[in-house]
């Protein structure tokens, strides 16, 4: 075979010996040069992530200081102290209302936030809401599996916080004139120790509602499971004044 081939070669004329130019089969790809184009989305996403990192860091520091053993007891003193620490970190961050919502969902993602301790988490979220630039904050939390406790703590006058979904215990405690709207249920101790402002719950409310409440109003569109020892203020159940009025025994199931 080899001999045959070489013989064939010998018969080629000089013109035939001139080879056709080689064609690069990938010639067409030469035109493609990857250009890194930037669109505003890239910038928005980057800055959102930076803010989220700062918020996460603040929360982790709060846990380091206030829940060293990852245990946290709800007591008057511990709440006040934790809030003061949370305030300190929150004040340093430039965030928007949407960042607060993102943080609530990040709490349920262990890859993002390793520890969700309901008490400090709620206090931290409350501090974020209280120091947010916006006067009205909407948190769409219907798909959140965890009900956040202590949300709306010390909500100041002039702020309106709307929560879509259910909230946990101690919702709106120590309210300081703000307006808290929960488009779902709240658990026990709602509005405890509130001084002024308004809490509106679209569905039902748990036990000890308004415990040591000093002022303000609680409106419930569903049922109130039990009232606490109220000092002053008003509680309405389906537009009907239930406190003050025909006094019900505290925490009575009805």
């Amino acid at each position: 075979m080899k001999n045959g081939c070489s013989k064939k070669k010998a018969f080629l004329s000089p013109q035939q010996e001139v080879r056709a130019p080689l064609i690069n089969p990938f010639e067409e790809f030469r035109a493609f040069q990857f250009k890194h184009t930037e669109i505003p989305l890239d910038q928005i996403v980057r800055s959102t992530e930076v803010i989220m990192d700062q918020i996460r860091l603040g929360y982790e520091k709060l846990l380091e200081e206030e829940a060293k053993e990852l245990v946290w007891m709800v007591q008057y003193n511990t709440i006040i102290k934790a809030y003061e620490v949370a305030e300190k970190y929150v004040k340093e961050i430039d965030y928007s209302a949407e960042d607060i919502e993102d943080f609530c969902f990040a709490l349920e993602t262990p890859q993002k936030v390793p520890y969700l301790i309901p008490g400090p988490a709620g206090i931290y979220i409350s501090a974020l809401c209280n120091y947010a630039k916006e006067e009205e904050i909407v948190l769409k939390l219907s798909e959140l599996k965890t009900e956040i406790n202590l949300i709306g703590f010390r909500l100041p006058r002039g702020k309106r916080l709307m929560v879509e979904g259910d909230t946990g215990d101690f919702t709106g405690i120590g309210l300081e004139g703000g307006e808290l709207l929960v488009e779902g249920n709240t658990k026990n101790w709602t509005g405890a120790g509130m001084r002024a402002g308004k809490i509106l719950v679209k569905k039902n409310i748990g036990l000890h509602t308004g415990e040591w409440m000093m002022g303000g109003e609680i409106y419930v569109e569903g049922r109130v499971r039990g009232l606490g020892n109220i000092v002053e203020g008003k509680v309405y159940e389906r537009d009907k004044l239930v406190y003050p009025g025909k006094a019900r025994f505290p925490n009575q199931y009805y």
Partner: protein
Amino acid sequence: MEEKRLQTLIEEIWPRLKRKHLYPEIPIPKVGKVNDPPDEGMEKNDPAFRGVGLEMKDKQLTINPSFLSTMKGKMSEENLIEALLDHGITHYTFCPWDFQTHLALYAEAKKVMGDKETAKQAATHFIDVIADTHCVKRRVTEIPELHRNLKKGAVEEVIASLYQRIWGIDLGISFSKKGNEEVVRRLARIPYLDRSRWTESIRKFSRSLKPLLILEQKEKESGGGKGDSNPLGEHDLNHYSYEEIDQGLRDYAQKTMGLSEFKEVVEDFSAELKEMGYGIEGGMGRGRGAPIDADILFYMKLAENYSIPLKKIPLEEAGTLHPHSHSPWEVGSPFQDIDIWTSFGKIMPGITQIWKKKEGKGRGKIEGAPDCLIIIDSSGSMINPRKNLSYAVLGAACVTNAYLRNHSKVAVYNFSDAPMGGREVLDYTSNREEVYRTLCKYFGGGTALDLEDIMPMIKKKKELDLFIITDMKITNLETLIGFFGKIQNRITAVHIGENPYASRFEKAVEKRKNINIFTVKKKEDIPHIILGSIREYFNPIHKAR
């Protein structure tokens, strides 16, 4: 004539488009009639009419000439076609990319929306935003110009405003409603181009768009019409081929491993799946009319992810086998039957072919897989396969596939309290659906076998394998042990959890070489343990390794 001219135009720009999108495997787009249901009470000449510009069906992009004519004067024909095709191609090259991603995105949207129609809308908008944003960022495209000129409803206006913000291009949108601005602000924070975060992103997207989508849905319902179609093409199952849907369902079942999630998605798409001839009856379900049994489909698709090699045994046949015809090779089918000449030397499902052998005249012993009798426990102590993922049913389904792939037949004896009638018997068959249906039957009562039922099924077969899967809490266990002690068939017994009954069974049959027992302590391990162990059992080479 007009269509011919447009087709020529497409042929001219197609090489450039292909190059721009790095040579996608898509046939040349066509100009032709598309499925564009007219909205009731609206004429096509009506300026408010918004038709479908692009149809994507089984990888074929079709441009609607009537849509092009409605856009006359607003954009040059060439730019308009290029923008439509850029959009269509990006669906294949970036998002959703495959059917499984589409299903996963829809399932996440459904979790937020709670309603099938609005969830489909949310998924469609999300997929479109990703495709268009990808195109605007990575390619030179006329998509922004197209959006500037499209007629918009309330949702489309919000999305166009989102584009304005995230692309940094003026599309001529200014808001009158304050609420919409907030929606856009929320939508603009989503990392659309980060594929790894799509599931999280679509939840956020749906959450933000939910009030608008619900409002739009209500308007549609009160209007009685179907509403406007998506001018950039609907994202339904027509987009995908049978094979892609098959693969997508398989991957989705494997990924979720959750029966309820799979069932919900399949039921939501049941109309479309049926429309595509994807019933449960007849082969892979390519028959019309039969309702889709999502439970059976779930186990079928999940089991397809596993394959068990089956060690053949000498079987006495009336004659020797000779190659008769070809059939497509599937993963798990015997390699030795592959016809390399017609398979182009490749081992690849869809290309590779195997010889189908037929029996000739004469007598002799040849290697083959015997038929199998699957005995499955569906008593109250077992998981209901129609409520939760039952690893017992999954294991039995994998075994079914292994035997059927080797051209053997499978019979099923599904029992709970058999003497009291709690049993279902399926005679030897090669009909996969029938086998799966019997496996999925759940009685949930006591646990007792009736040997009177099993004996005739064993006696009528000269060579037969037995596969039993149970928790061994059988009231007449001694009878079963005694029965297994008498027969010589290969028996694979799988029992779930440690209990005194299982220990008793193990002890009683430990000396029997034809019986292999596998204990499963964690239910989740069943598919792996069964499959791995059977491989060892049927294929001694694996054991030696």
